[in-house]
């Protein structure tokens, strides 16, 4: 899986050059860390790659690192509060690649809906669950929670059993 993706990295470096902050490999596979603004550029380059075009954006995942330092006790916590992982897959050459971008709370991420149609709903989940806004998204509204729900449930500070005691008279 990762061998096919390696040559693509060289071509990506030539295309983006300085914008790529880091390329590392972990249990997930090859991860390319990129600045937040250059995510669409990276996706565009990967999509229109000559030999193995990454034509499917399988998934967008967000992680909230706010409790990371205190839970793991490590000193170095990730550079910003949220991180976005774009899970790209190339059907022709069966290669998988992750584009990673960090963003602070309240920062707007660029939308990828003009590149992939699957980004439309994927970004709506991330907005609904984490409150990360995507600039350029056609209709960014909540997908799971009701419209008038003011919180972002998957943020670490949101309690699992919810906030309105009236609705859940718990123990």
């Amino acid at each position, binding site marked *: 899986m990762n061998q096919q993706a390696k040559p693509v990295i060289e071509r990506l470096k030539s295309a983006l050059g300085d914008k790529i902050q880091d390329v590392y490999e*972990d*249990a997930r596979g090859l991860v390319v860390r990129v600045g937040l603004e250059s995510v669409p550029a990276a996706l565009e380059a990967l999509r229109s790659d000559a030999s193995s075009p990454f034509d*499917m954006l399988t998934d967008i995942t967000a992680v909230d690192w706010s409790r990371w330092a205190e839970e*793991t006790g490590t000193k170095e916590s990730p550079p910003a509060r949220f991180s976005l992982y774009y899970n790209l897959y190339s059907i022709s050459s069966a290669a998988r690649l992750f584009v990673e971008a960090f963003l602070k709370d309240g920062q707007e991420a660029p939308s990828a809906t003009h590149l992939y*149609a699957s980004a*439309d709903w994927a970004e709506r989940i991330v907005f609904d669950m984490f409150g990360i806004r995507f600039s350029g998204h056609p209709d960014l509204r909540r997908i*799971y*929670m009701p419209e008038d729900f003011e919180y972002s449930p998957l943020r670490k500070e949101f309690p699992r059993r919810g906030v309105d005691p009236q609705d859940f008279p718990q123990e």
Partner: protein
Amino acid sequence: MKEAFPRSVECEEKLDLCAERMVLNWGPSHPATHGTLRVILTLEGETIVKCDTEIGYLHRGLEKLAEDWTYNQIVNISDRLNYCSVFINNVGWHQACEKLFGIQVPPRATYLRTIMSEVARIADHMVCIGPNCVDIGVLTPFWYTWNLREMAYDLLEFVTGARMTTAFTRVGGLAADAPEGLEERITKVFLPEVYRVMDELDSLLSKNRIFNDRTRGVGALSKEEAVSYGWTGPCLRACGVAYDVRAANPYLAYGDVDFDIPVGGHGDTYDRLFVRVEECRQSARIIEQALSKLPDGPVNADDKRVVLPRKDDVYGHIEGLIHHFEIVMFGPKAPVGAQCYDSVEGANGELGFTIVSNGTNKPYRMHVRSPCFYVFSALPRLVVGRLLADLPAVVASLNIIAGELDL
């Protein structure tokens, strides 16, 4: 209060002839939605002009719940994702965990997982084909497909003890070994029935004039659009793209069994159904080959961090007792800062699990890549411009499972 809806341009001149557009709510509690999803249609007569979907009626906050459960407990969450093919979810979840922990599963467990996954896949296709035919108006296939699913239930119950929510895999292997008589029970009872029902479905539906009229060319999607929408699984293969996680990235025992990937031509409802019928035959072939090569040996990896020690070790030595207590009470601990993504070929497509571990026995973040979610996002594209009667046929052929859709 009656909202004034914008009239379509082309009927401006024959104003009186053209009727107002009617907003029809095809709501959360409806027989043909197979679950809790809502489609708000703007109709002009019988033609669908605008289609807006609303989901989240079964959003149970599984990803938030997973942050409070241990790795072996989360198998219960994975049961309730795609509750028609539960075993594949269990295998998907624990395979991602094993990739995170860096554990190798013994061959017997790998083969048993493959066999039971294929049984679950056949059961899931039955729940898709049966009700889909009922929505189109053909009632008889429902009874045939449901009989086969009951046999799959019996098989799953025979091996795991539960009909639906099996929760049979653990980090490092399976909860228990398969009982004797499994091989004989599959080859003698289950497999002949699978082939018979598939041939019956073929003869019943493929040449049926009404069925062809209702499904051929309905809800078709081109290859490029399907990939752009993130489609995977039978729906994508019906569009002509031969992408199957079992073949592209062979996991479990799919490397040493040979099976071919059925690919449809037009990507319409007809192809989506018959790709699933053909896939059931391939699954039966996989089961046969895997059963013939089923090795003996332990079912769990002998990695101390993860697997319970043997009973005499527990009663014999204090370390065994402590080790047993630790595994049972707290479950295995993952390495700090490990992140992993692993995907299996679920019945509806690529079912992926992203896990971020913080060194404790609970994941820091668990994300499920649910195939139904991306398949359903393309519904407006499939349905706008078609007649209202095509909507149930298209939605049912996408096999939308609310548990997986709403996470």
